[in-house]
């Protein structure tokens, strides 16, 4: 892999579903690329296809047409070197926190003993040291999602694919999770594709924010967020931060009004600032 080259790329990637009422274009001709180590957010209203695009990158959905490339290879199915995080923590309720974190190690048939220290270290770093033997039902929603993040990182994947991972959490926990994730990625550098419908979250976390929207859905904007890292949470109050949020919100609204004119009743976008 050449440094600075495209690590992840989508070229005219499309996904079409056949339903009873006809063809549904979930993603149409999506183009984007990411360099190794970049944090990219896919931002957009519900139903803009951002999650579908992410699942295509995870190899869980096949592309109807176009091409997806990850680490120099076309994505044809799930890969061992990706870690996926869903909206729900999806922990196994009968396993302890530590065993849940080690779940990928078991599935990938790696040696448990070699990853034990790493699993403990990850839990320590997200503030869950001492919780190794708890079961998921003993944890709060935020803690469970932290376990899910540790699980996604335990086998040291190159890419982290996150599908609205914090959208089920309350606003305060969500802010905390953003800091946790940001600090974690300072330590374990990964290429991250992060799907969200929170503008603030996208700006705080990302190197680049891609706005998806319109009908049929397309890439409306590719905005670079040049804040240096590590980023203190206080940058959210800075003028530039507010400015980026404003640009993004306007883009989303325009994308929507555009679709409103072409389609009479578009659903109201759920975008929180």
């Amino acid at each position, binding site marked *: 892999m050449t440094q600075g080259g495209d690590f992840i790329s989508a070229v005219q990637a499309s996904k079409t579903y056949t339903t009873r009422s006809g063809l549904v274009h979930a993603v149409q001709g999506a183009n984007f690329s990411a360099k190794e180590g970049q944090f990219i957010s896919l931002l957009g209203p519900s139903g803009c296809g951002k999650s579908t695009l992410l699942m295509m990158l995870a190899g869980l959905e096949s592309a109807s047409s176009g091409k997806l490339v990850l680490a120099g290879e076309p994505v044809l199915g799930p*890969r061992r070197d990706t870690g*996926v995080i869903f909206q*729900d923590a999806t922990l196994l309720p009968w396993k302890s926190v530590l065993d849940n974190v080690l779940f990928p190690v078991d599935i990938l048939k790696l040696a448990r003993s070699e990853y034990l220290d790493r699993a403990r270290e990850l839990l*320590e770093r997200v503030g869950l040291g001492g919780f190794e033997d708890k079961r998921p039902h003993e*944890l709060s929603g935020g803690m469970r999602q932290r376990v899910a993040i540790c699980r996604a990182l335990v086998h040291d994947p190159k890419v982290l694919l996150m599908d609205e991972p914090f959208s089920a959490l309350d606003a305060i926990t969500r802010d905390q999770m953003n800091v*946790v994730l940001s600090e974690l990625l300072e330590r374990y550098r990964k290429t991250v594709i992060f799907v969200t419908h929170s503008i603030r979250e996208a700006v705080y976390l990302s190197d680049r924010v891609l706005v998806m929207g319109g009908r049929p859905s397309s890439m409306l904007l590719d905005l670079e967020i040049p804040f240096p890292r590590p980023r203190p949470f206080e940058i959210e109050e800075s003028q530039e931060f507010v400015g980026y949020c404003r640009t993004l919100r306007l883009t989303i609204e325009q994308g929507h009004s555009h679709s409103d004119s072409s389609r009479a009743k578009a659903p109201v976008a759920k975008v929180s600032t």
Partner: protein
Amino acid sequence: MSTTIEKSQSIETETTGPKKSGFLQTLASSSATVILPLLLASAVLLMWEYGVQLAGVPEVILPSPSSIFKVMIAKHEILLRHSQPTILESAGGFALASILGISLAILLSYSRIAREALYPNLVFFQLIPKIALAPLFIIWFGIGSESRLAFAVFISFFPIVISTIAGFASVDTNMVRLCRSLTATEWQIFTSVKFPAALPYIFSGMKVAMTMAIIGVIIGEFITAQQGLGYLIVFATARADTVVGMAAIATLCAGGLLLYGLVAAAEAVANRYYGVPRG
């Protein structure tokens, strides 16, 4: 570690920390669940005992609990001898039904063709009053224990199939997606996610199946057997020996309780490893 994280952790531990609900309180509530039903049962037995005596009901119509108990002690050898085939055949029928039922449920969960072809027929099959078919099993399998075993399997496997299928359907689809994203094989998904998640459902089906298997064996014994508690009940009541008949029924209850208890114990063991404690 930054202070933000530490702060958030302490906030969260407060809300989800260990519950210190009073030991006495749990003791009181658990004793209520044990003591109250026992009190009620004792009251009913007492009323039975003295009601029969006071009203002068003849023993052939309704013997008192104490006389049934006396007969159970006096004839325990006969009762135990007849319990043996009944219990063994019930347990055997249940075991076969579990293996067949779970296997069929796995087949139906994984093969679409099998599901579409078989499932509606299975449901239709369930509508047949199965007890009516018992005499046919004698024709097909003879008067030996084979016919009773087959009949016990026949009437007890269905609840296992249905609940196991429900168990597989209850599996969190995101959990399966997570496994797939990790390149898990179908077998890995089955053993690490689907089967453990279905276990509570499988056990609830097995508990129903256990009682059904006993019913199947008893019916078989009513029809043909030369031994077993069902045979003893028919034999005794035919000679108007109600006390012995009731003693056999009481023994059957005890045996049924034992078998059910074994399934419940297995469930408790499984729950320790795969259970989702309600918290």
